[in-house]
């Protein structure tokens, strides 16, 4: 098979033999050939870190088909990204109760979604340590924006999220009186205007 790929591949177009490359995103394997799954440009990349068992073999390059961002003429959001297990999301807290906080996911990865997905942060997923002592009321309030990670696709109505990491938690919040809050430490935020302290599970600022 020629190693030169077409400029633009279309779904169903065979690109290479499955033995020559590792399939990446936007491709599938059919009849021992890697075929494109979307309309896009085929690209090769080297895998980030070879796993232990591959160290003995030659590291195969990863063949993916990517959809260029400039493919669409206007600023319409592209392919709707769905939250996968492990993806980082930004979500807005809508409801809280002693056992869980209900959120609406509006950013998946780096893309703002067209539609919002509903998710849940359970009490045991808020922190990594002392999980039973978590009080949701001291961790989140309705209206907060939190950065979280998807841990499960969940059931028909909710994704399951977790903020159990230093970099995860509340990133933007407002006090009861409406002032923006800035982070003090992992569990406190202060109002910029009055200096009043409120409790949140705060994400470590980047």
């Amino acid at each position, binding site marked *: 098979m020629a190693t030169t790929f077409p400029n633009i591949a*279309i779904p169903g177009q065979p690109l290479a033999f499955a033995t020559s490359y590792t399939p990446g995103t936007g491709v*599938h394997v059919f009849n021992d050939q890697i075929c494109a799954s979307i309309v896009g440009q085929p690209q090769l990349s080297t895998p980030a870190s070879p796993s232990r068992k591959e160290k003995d073999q030659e590291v195969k390059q990863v063949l993916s088909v990517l959809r260029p961002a400039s493919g669409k003429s206007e600023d319409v959001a592209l392919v709707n990204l*769905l939250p996968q297990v492990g993806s980082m999301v930004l979500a807005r807290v809508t409801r809280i109760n002693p056992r869980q906080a209900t959120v609406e996911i509006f950013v998946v990865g780096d893309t703002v979604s067209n*539609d919002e997905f509903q998710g849940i942060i359970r009490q045991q997923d808020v922190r990594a340590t002392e999980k039973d002592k978590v009080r949701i009321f001291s961790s989140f309030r309705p209206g907060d924006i939190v950065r979280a990670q998807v841990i499960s696709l969940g059931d028909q109505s909710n994704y399951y999220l977790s903020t159990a990491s230093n970099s995860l938690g509340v990133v933007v919040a407002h006090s009861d009186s409406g002032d923006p809050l800035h982070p003090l430490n992992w569990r406190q935020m202060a109002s910029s205007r009055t200096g009043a302290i409120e409790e949140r599970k705060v994400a470590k600022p980047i």
Partner: protein
Amino acid sequence: MTDRRRINGPSEGTTPPVFASAVVTKPTPTRAPDSLRKIFLKTSLTPPATGSAFLELPSPAPYPNSSTLKITASVYGPRPLPSSAAFSPHARLTAELKFAPFSTPHKRRGYVRDAVERDLSVQLQNALVKSIKTGAYPKSGIDVFITVLDCEGGLDGDDDEGVEVGLMGVLAGAITCASAAVADAGIECVDLVSGGVAALVKRPQNSDAMDTDGMNAPMLVLDPSPADGYQILSAAVVGYMAGREEVTLLWTKGSVGILDGEEDELDLLMDGAIMTATAVRLVLNEAVKERMLLGLARSKGKLKEDGGGDVAMSS
């Protein structure tokens, strides 16, 4: 008792005149039986939709302003299912096909969905669902909306003796248009489905070719149009994935004889429809690449004006 005060009409009553229906001359087909009509297919025409496409087929009738087949497709998704929907590890594909009220020439269609539209929607869904990698989008829905703006010559064949092929042409066009829209939306598919129609028609009387079988051997016509004027004995529409060489939809109407010998009418029909679908696939390929090529060219600065070469209004 005659009434003398007024001028009366005839006493027995009158009946309104019934005009003889205009003699409709059957059009004679102008295309060769195996020639296909040129397809116009463009994607990304509906900005709010994730993916969209528009397809137009010329009508063989040589009059100006003759009706053609015009179909538009919009794809939304994958978007989250409503909470009331059951959990699904696959994307749920729904296809909805509607005829615009002005799409048929004789009578205005109402907005209420009727059996024909529902039936075509189900067939379209069956044709598309096998090509989309629904397993990659759990808990989501992909919605395909097809609107037929003009269905050439209406849906009811004038001929009660023939199979009506207009609906099949609409379905084939809808399949192609929907596939283009799905590819435009960036939804992962294993291959693109194209639609093709073929028909077995009664050989016209003035045909020079007289088979040894006799005059009644049916003739295979690819991409038949209701305006062609053939008398159709049987017809088939396929949804075909040309890359994988697999059929996702087969719909036949009319009686087909199955013979054990070489000449098998069903084989003829299916192969004819697949040939049509394969040719349509070439158009589909070019259409889905076109948008992306345009975007790439613009990002490389080859096109100087914004708006991709469109003529801008001067003040």
